[in-house]
């Protein structure tokens, strides 16, 4: 029994390693193609992996759908921008910033950590109220939170620049930087999921009454996951800002919320591998369709999909997945090495 348990734990530990290797292969393949656009697509995909894995830490384990995580991305992106933009630029663009922040000229790494950290702090404070609600009420409250953050950011012009974009962010995010963050997010998410707190949270997802009868404090475990989750969404937002170089409150609003949800649903909300695979599948599909819209040359002729068909095809694909594979591509399973590889000997399976 104990040895079986050990094997199970070792198998679970292979999941983040395998996911990291898959992402590494993805980056190498993208770079090997030698196309700058594809390299950029790879970096963007990995930033999304960071965000969606963060998103999964809360949604996947708690079973509570959140519509508010794009707001943590917004907070992370702006915090990083505030800390890294050159002081003279901030004086003209964002005159309302407090002295200390206006003078800050941080390195990008601590700024990204600070972006995640501030997002996590905001999650801790708002989650303390939101997570006392249960089920759909909590989801609606997260949506209200998203709308509030967007409204504040769009109107607090001296500090956020309002609806006009903040420009001039240091574009340091290469596919390798994004890979580093994605692997970190996956590792922390796997550690959290296999921890006592992660397990307790999944129990509350299965049955709230029975979880309470087992002495599980739902609120505490939810709040921990919400905070951790916001950290990676915030850090992902910071990376996104430094990838594009321009940030704007609407870049972290409804379309990002729905994109993150779509990626999670397509990959399968039941597992960490689902979150990662959903991002990869959707990002690659979008890239292919965008290229097809631009036109592919076959011999002398050029074939092109009509503009707008990308959205329609993706929507249809999503509906088909929801009908035929409602638990997502991974259907709640994790990628892991088979038991006998891990144990180093033949063991009967189940």
């Amino acid at each position: 029994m104990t040895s079986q348990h050990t094997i199970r734990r070792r198998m679970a530990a292979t999941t983040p390693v395998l996911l990291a290797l898959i992402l590494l292969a993805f980056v190498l393949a993208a770079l090997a193609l030698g196309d700058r656009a594809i390299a950029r697509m790879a970096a963007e995909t990995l930033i999304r992996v960071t965000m969606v894995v963060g998103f999964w830490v809360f949604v996947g384990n708690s079973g509570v759908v959140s519509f508010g995580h794009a707001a943590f991305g917004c907070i992370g992106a702006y915090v990083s921008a505030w800390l890294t933009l050159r002081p003279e630029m901030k004086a003209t663009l964002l005159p309302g910033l407090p002295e200390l922040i206006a003078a800050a000229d941080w390195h990008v790494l601590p700024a990204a950590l600070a972006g995640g950290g501030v997002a996590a702090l905001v999650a801790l404070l708002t989650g303390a109220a939101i997570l006392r609600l249960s089920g759909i009420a909590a989801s609606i409250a997260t949506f209200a939170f998203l709308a509030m953050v967007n409204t504040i950011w769009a109107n607090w012009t001296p500090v956020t620049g309002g609806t006009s974009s903040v420009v001039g962010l240091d574009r340091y995010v290469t596919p390798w930087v994004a890979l580093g963050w994605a692997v970190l997010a996956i590792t922390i998410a796997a550690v959290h999921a296999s921890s006592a707190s992660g397990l307790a949270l999944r129990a509350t997802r299965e049955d709230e009454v029975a979880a309470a009868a087992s002495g599980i404090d739902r609120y505490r475990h939810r709040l921990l996951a919400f905070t951790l989750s916001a950290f990676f969404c915030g850090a992902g937002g910071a990376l996104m800002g430094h990838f594009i170089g321009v940030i704007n409150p609407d870049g972290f609003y409804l379309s990002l919320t729905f994109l993150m949800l779509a990626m999670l649903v397509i990959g399968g909300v039941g597992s960490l591998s689902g979150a990662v695979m959903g991002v990869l599948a959707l990002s690659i599909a979008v890239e292919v369709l965008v290229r097809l819209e631009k036109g592919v040359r076959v011999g002398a002729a050029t074939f092109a999909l009509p503009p707008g068909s990308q959205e329609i095809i993706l929507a249809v694909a999503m509906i088909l997945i929801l009908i035929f594979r409602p638990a997502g591509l991974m259907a709640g399973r994790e990628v892991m090495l088979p038991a006998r590889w891990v144990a180093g000997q033949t063991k009967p399976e189940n």
Partner: protein
Amino acid sequence: MAKLGIFDLAVRYGKLTAIADLSFTVTEGERVFISGPNGAGKSSLLSAIAGAVRAAHGRIEMDGEILSGLGAEAIARRGLSMVPEGRRIFAGLTVLENLTVGTGMRRDRGAVADDLETVFTAFPILRERARASAGALSGGQQQMLAIARALMTNPKVMLVDEPSLGLAPKVVDEVYDRLCQLQGLRGLTLVIVEQSSARAARVGGRMLLMRGGRIVADGDATEFAARDLLTEAYFGGAA
């Protein structure tokens, strides 16, 4: 001193009164069956004791400590565990995860391993299926898992809501055998909701008969079977 004391407890759902000023005490190590017709308030009583349902008024004490007003998880941490009606196992988790999930609050880590061994010995099928998804177990196995899960929180008092629900008689026999065996082993105080008074009489213990949110009879389960109290409880009159 009574292990568990219920004093003037009332539970209301809106205007409907499920439990009306009910009082009883249970001594340590006792096995108490709660029986009665549908709607008598048996499940409401257990839920109120476990903190899953808020009482309108009244007091619930365990070892002299007042439990009423605490949340369900706080009550579980103090050593009162409930096996809910319909089992309610965590279907998406493995059998082993179901068993260990409630132990996160325990400080006696070494004892957790011993307890796991105890429940695996009592329910060998759970050891066999430890890595299987709990949702894949049969009804009887799920009931055993629910009981084992409650035991893993190291309770002093365990409430079991209708363990025989939807199970074949032979399986019910097995569930009760194991439950009594574990009670003896752990010195548990058991409060069990059981529709079948014949079953309660066979297992043996004290029996409280409920009707309309009140206790109408209190005595030895084997004596109940011999008397007409049950008929009275179901069809009217007072005991």
